[in-house]
């Protein structure tokens, strides 16, 4: 099995018909991995990380349940606004326990909602005065629509790394396991031995130069 993760808000592998979102991961079979050209391209571009793994058969300790996200209002609403994501995709039939999948989905939803809430609250110029139950429900409706729009991916842009050094907050996926330890030596290399009288002097001079620079430093 192969585990696919991403550091982008959302990545779609067209020929597999799957979408991977930030904070969540997707399992695929070896056949799917080998047959997907799109996945190989995304991997080469560093937008996804694909790791050969076996799904854990051991139930992990249940994580602490977090209180659902709720927007602070004059009258707190029970349950808050954080509803479980009901996406079209069914639970992956990969042998992962349902509870684990549910936790992964909830975690992804919480993180996405926190990011969206921060954006909405920053962008909203003023909030009209809310009176009565109808006003409150109308405001909740508007907020839910805004959250839904943001979560659908519109208005978000992938992290651009053109010409930019990656920061700690924006890790760039450099694939692991590029060098296969089991591959035998298969290359015929052209090897030449030569005398190089200046090499040691140059190395010594360079070391002295760097030492002096450090001392002056």
């Amino acid at each position, binding site marked *: 099995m192969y585990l696919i993760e991403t550091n982008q808000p959302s990545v779609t592998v067209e020929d597999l018909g799957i979408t991977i979102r930030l904070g969540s991961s997707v399992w695929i079979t070896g056949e799917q991995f*080998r047959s997907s*050209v799109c996945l*190989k*391209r995304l991997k*080469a*571009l*560093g937008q996804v990380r694909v790791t050969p793994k076996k799904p854990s058969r051991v139930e992990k300790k249940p994580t602490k349940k977090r209180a659902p996200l709720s927007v602070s209002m004059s009258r707190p609403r029970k349950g808050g606004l954080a509803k479980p994501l009901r996406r079209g995709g069914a639970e992956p039939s990969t042998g992962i326990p349902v509870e684990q999948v549910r936790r992964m989905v909830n975690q992804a939803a919480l993180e996405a909602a926190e990011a969206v809430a921060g954006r909405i609250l920053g962008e909203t110029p003023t909030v009209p005065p809310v009176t009565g139950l109808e006003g409150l429900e109308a405001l909740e409706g508007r907020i839910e629509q805004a959250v839904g729009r943001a979560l659908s991916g519109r208005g978000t842009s992938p992290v651009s*790394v*053109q*010409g*930019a*050094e*990656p920061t700690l907050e924006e890790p*760039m996926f*450099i*694939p*692991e*396991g*590029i*060098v*296969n330890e089991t*591959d035998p*030596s*298969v*290359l*015929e*290399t*052209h*090897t*030449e*031995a*030569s*005398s*190089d*009288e*200046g*090499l*040691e*002097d*140059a*190395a*010594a*001079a*360079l*070391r002295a*130069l*760097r030492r002096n*620079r450090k001392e002056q430093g």
Partner: protein
Amino acid sequence: MSNYGTGLDIGTMNVVCARRTGKDKVETSRVRDAFLDLDAGAKRMLKLNGVNFVDRGEDGIIVVGDAALEIANVFGREARRPLSGGLISAGELDALEILGIMVKNLLGPVKTNREYCYFSVPAAPVDADRDLVYHKGIFERIVSECGYTPVAGNEAMAIIYAETAKEGFSGLALSFGSGMCNIALAVNGIEGLTFSVSQGGDWIDAGAAKATGSTASRMCALKEKGVDLLKPEGREQEALALYYKSLCEYCISTTAKEFQKIKDRFALPRPIPIVVSGGTALAGNFLPFFQQTFERERKRFPFEVSDIRMASDPLNAVARGLLIQAVQEYSD
């Protein structure tokens, strides 16, 4: 001095590894930066011919290096290149695996725990928007997975370290590569200016081919067979000389332009040498050709040049310069 430390020059056309094997002795290993994928049915033919390959089971087989070019001719195909324009080819899906194979075979096993390996990275091009971060990160990962401690070193600065020790590591180095040209200016080992231009040997081949209605492969073969840039014979050689002249002029004028941006904060206390290197500089009479081109610009050039010379070993100068940096990590 120990024999620890290695230099790895990763180029579009060749990958070269340099290692010290004794007092005043250096061993360089080179592999062509090319590969070819074949169906599993070709295994028998390759075994009969003694050609090594990587077996990928139902995904076929891969031939890497010089053999890939030879076999590609047999099958009437083009060999694939994991690097393009000096950087990892974005469109080449198998590039990473191939580069891993090449580097692993060239470096071999470490001689000491986490032995230092200085590998070359180009400078950012001034005339194209290309990302170096991914390229550098990939090779750091590959070299690390081979058991080495990876350190990235600028390609043209490596030539400074290899060729200008007697000038106190001061000079202007131009590395004429296949995918790009790298340029570095340094005084007393301090890097003042490093950049690259996205034209190189491949650009010459493509331009001359287009001008004469020929192919880039033929132009490349013509170059390797031997062309005298000062006395080109025939249309094709004249086209090559013309593009060589254009490339030299471009590098010189871009250097002058880039220097203007730093001249107020980077003083050159004395005239410095220019060192030219790289596979593209191996064309016949390239040095006098370059000197002639420079003389036309000398009066307008922003700093004084003491002399212009060719690297002692143009194909291996970068690897040698990186080796010098790696070896000094282990000096007493």
